[in-house]
């Protein structure tokens, strides 16, 4: 498939909060190599997302599931030598996806629920492990997962 390059998309994203240094990316890959999500999901590639934004592949970026995979851990931002704020850019892309109808507000809210739950999940399991009642903790979490 041959696509054309368009710069409007990057102008929109770079004008949003956190998008300020988007253009500075020189594609070194430091963000992707440090990303904990990239290690478990090969399709999640922060550098590639930035490239796609820079080259104007708007439909693909906003309609795909990749932008919702980010943990928001900020590891990429600690390593970027050009101070590109990928975590912030992901937030901007999610807002755009909702605003332009690529995703529903309900979907975005649910992703937040998942984020909140996964944090609780981790906390409870670690605590269970520490207290020696991991099975109990697991069972409690299986009950709660039904609500998400």
């Amino acid at each position: 498939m041959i696509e054309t390059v368009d710069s409007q998309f990057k102008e929109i994203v770079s004008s949003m909060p956190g998008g300020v240094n988007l253009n500075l990316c020189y594609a070194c890959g430091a963000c992707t190599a440090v990303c904990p999500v990239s290690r478990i999901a090969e399709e999640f590639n922060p550098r590639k997302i930035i490239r796609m934004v820079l080259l104007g592949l708007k439909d693909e970026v906003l309609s795909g599931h990749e932008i919702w995979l980010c943990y928001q851990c900020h590891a990429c931002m600690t390593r970027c030598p050009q101070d590109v704020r990928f975590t912030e850019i992901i937030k901007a892309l999610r807002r755009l996806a909702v605003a332009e109808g690529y995703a529903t507000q309900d979907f975005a809210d649910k992703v937040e629920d998942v984020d909140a739950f996964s944090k609780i999940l981790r906390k409870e399991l670690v605590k269970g492990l520490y207290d020696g009642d991991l099975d109990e903790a697991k069972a409690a979490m299986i009950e709660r997962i039904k609500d998400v």
Partner: protein
Amino acid sequence: MSKPVMVLGGGIAGIQASLDLAEMGIPVYLVESQPSIGGRMAQLDKTFPTNDCSTCILAPKMSSCANHPLIKIYSYSELKDIRGRAGDFTAVVTKKARYVDEEACNGCRQCLDVCPQYVDDDFNMGIDQRKAVYMLFQQGIPNVAAIDDRFCRFLNRDKNDKCGRCARICPRKAIRYGQRDKDIELEVGAIILATGYDTFAAELKPEYGYGSYRNVVTSMEYERIMSASGPYGGHIKRPDGKEPKRIAFLQCVGSRDAKCDREYCSSVCCMYAMKEAVITREHIKSIDDLSIYYMDMRAFGKDFERYYENAKKQGINFVRSRVTEIAEDSDTHDLKLYAVDEQGRVSEDEFDMVVLSVGLVPRPDVVELCQRAGIKTDRYGFVHADDMAPIQTTREGVLACGVLTGPKDIPETVYEASGAASLAAQLVKDLPGPEIPKPEEVPMRDIGRERPRIGVFVCHCGTNIAGVVDVKAAAEYAKALPCVEYVDDTMYACAADTQGFIADMIKEHDLNRVVVASCTPRTHEPLFQDVLRKSGLNPYLFTMVNIRDQCSWVHMDYPEEATEKAKDLIRMAVAKAYYAQPLQQQVLPKDSSALVIGGGLAGMTSALSLAKQGYKVYLVEKEPVLGGNARLMNTSARGRSFEQYMDELTESVYDHPYITVLTSAHISAVEGYVGNFITTVRKGPDTIKLNHGVIIVAVGANESMPDEYLYGQHPAVMTQLKLERQIKHHVDDFKGKRIVMIQCVGSREPQRPYCSRVCCTQAVKNAICLKEMDPTIQITILYREMRTYGMNELYYEKARRLGVDFVRYDVDDKPRVTVDEDDSNKINVEFYEHLIGRTLKIKADYLILSAAIEADRESNAELSQMLKVPINQDGFFLEAHMKLRPVEFATDGIFLCGMAHAPKNADEVIAQAQGAAARAASILAKEYITTDGMVAKVNRFLCVACGICESICPYKAIAVDPQLHVAVVNAALCKGCGLCSATCRPGAVDLQGFDDSEILAQLDALYSW
């Protein structure tokens, strides 16, 4: 004698500037903060792209500084303050207490042996230890000890230990515990700053673990680890002692990094990392993995691209990725690197050792000095340099060269240093200074009736030679050779103390021939000849044997055979020395004007520089107007207008009473030799003969004409230079348009396997210019590797910030360019985007090609024939030495600058042109030309005037005299190559210093003994 100049910093920049000034007859105070001159170059192992030993090429220049009567070295001294103004400065210099009487100390090192206090050795980057009383390095100059008062037990009054051991053992009573820092005032006319750089503190990138992971080292530490004179004697080891099998080099540590406020590129790291990898392979044959992690490989200098290609062929693994972090295995201390490939796969590769290619940063003490002295620095602390005045600072009369003004390699540093000397000379030449007594002439000893008494000195060169050759055995062997009166083995024959020792032995043993078995006569012969001269012996009674290149280097795997060969070579040299005769040098008159060939930016700059120093210049340009390429350009990267600058420069050239401009003129013949050239110039119907003493070749190069991407077939396709013209005259054409630029058009490909250096910066500069005019212009730059080296990186950053897109392409999958089917005014550019893994298309209004810079091969070949100077395989002129002689040819009296040498940016052209002027002036400043003694000599009774020698001589140095009917040698032209002697059938021509008796004696020694 003119007013002195102060040079601050005794690295290669300061050394070069000092030597140039001294050669021009100007006294120099060379001030160095360390106990020895030498600077960073003394710490490096080898230099790229020739892999020369760094110290080996530097040491002769250091010695020349020490030996020059016009250079006064103030080592272990710092500049405190500059008072006054250009032409009339008072420099306040603090001579730090070194607690040693410099006059009394003879560098015997006995104090070093007895000192009980060990200290981390800064010169070896703290990898091993030295004593509190120390000498910076083996070949240090001055060869005098210093006491580090931070650690000395006596000076720190340790109550339990009444030390004073060094004072007790010193045979010269040179220790002075009572010495204190002392301020001295130097009256100088100009000041050259050449203070160099620090390396980036790798601790500031904690993700790489430097400082906590013991096997992560910096590149400067690795240079010392590789060095034969380093802490491991040249055996590459990890700091924990294990020999590494897998080494990774990480680029851009502290460069191109906004996180640590180092946005610029450090210019040299890509090449030094490649060199370190290549040399490592020579050290450890069985190495499994040498990987360089990089973002853009910046092999932009002369012959660098070939080095890069060779490194790839040698199996160096190049990984395009920035390593995000390093993890250490706490048991094995091996290291795991996290990186990502272009397909997005995260890799976790393991290595035994990691070398961080740390960037170059300004020295904080120098930044402070500049603030005190009113010299402007940039936001990083580099001394501010203007594109059109790269060597001047904001304070008049204070000049700057080397990395002090921004990251750069050694050749650029050297020509800037020469350029600084040139500008300083203009300032001080008419100012009266103190009389400096000439060195006393040592009367030559008449050895006519003496039987040969030969001294042999065999050099260890640290482990360079002794690591392979059994030097002691070779020396022992020499003792039994006929007429050998004295033999010794020395650690470094070139060290100042050893030179003194050789002189002492000449006296003590009444030697009248000296043989040194060490390294190459190309760099070191003059040094030893000087020792003989000062000892009252004719310098041609010296014979040198190269047991380093010819034994230890080439036979490193066969130590026994190498030792036998060294003995053979020494035996031959002794046999030759037996027949050595004193030879006489001639003194010839010379002309004090210069010919500059080429009237572009380079030629005009060097012509004006020479004229301002008071020399007459002929400036010959083949075009009807002066200006060359610079006339076609719009602005420099920093936005300076070329038109305005070139107008002013042209006016100054035409107005200068010492410059004669000949436009529409062609060189048709060059005769003569250094000091006495006669050049024939055709100008229209006229033929003009010019007499001059030196020649500067500044013929430039051109933007090539592309043969791809629809160039010449579609009006919307143009080169960068054409774009600059369009921007200047029809900028509105580009408003709101879609523009694509393609880099490396015709560069880095088989027909031109070199990088054209200027195109990345030029493309970025033009893109910025367009974007600033109209932000709605969309620009995409397709590149193979962005090589915006040094401070140019800031323009690459600016272009990205302004929204210019950069997409990488591979040379075997180049962009495809077609005319749009629907709108024939437009051009479709299709290219593969690696990171998202698909082909993209742009419908462009303009396609700009960054065409290669190419030499005019035909005209350069013709000129090289006339001048008898070489051109390289790419058609550019070939300098005498890539690193240390970047503006001169091997042939005396002929210099080069600008793009005739290699593609380069305007600021570099200006610096190099000023550098060439300095080197040329060093000849013009002399009263006479002195010829070499080792020249051909004709026995007129045997000569039959057949003329074969005349036809074969490459230097036109021998010709048959039609009246006398014998061949006659021009000693000033003769290079002593020996071709005439070898071809002469009656055996009438002999090369003095290599005559038949000497050569036959050598052969006899080789085969019959």
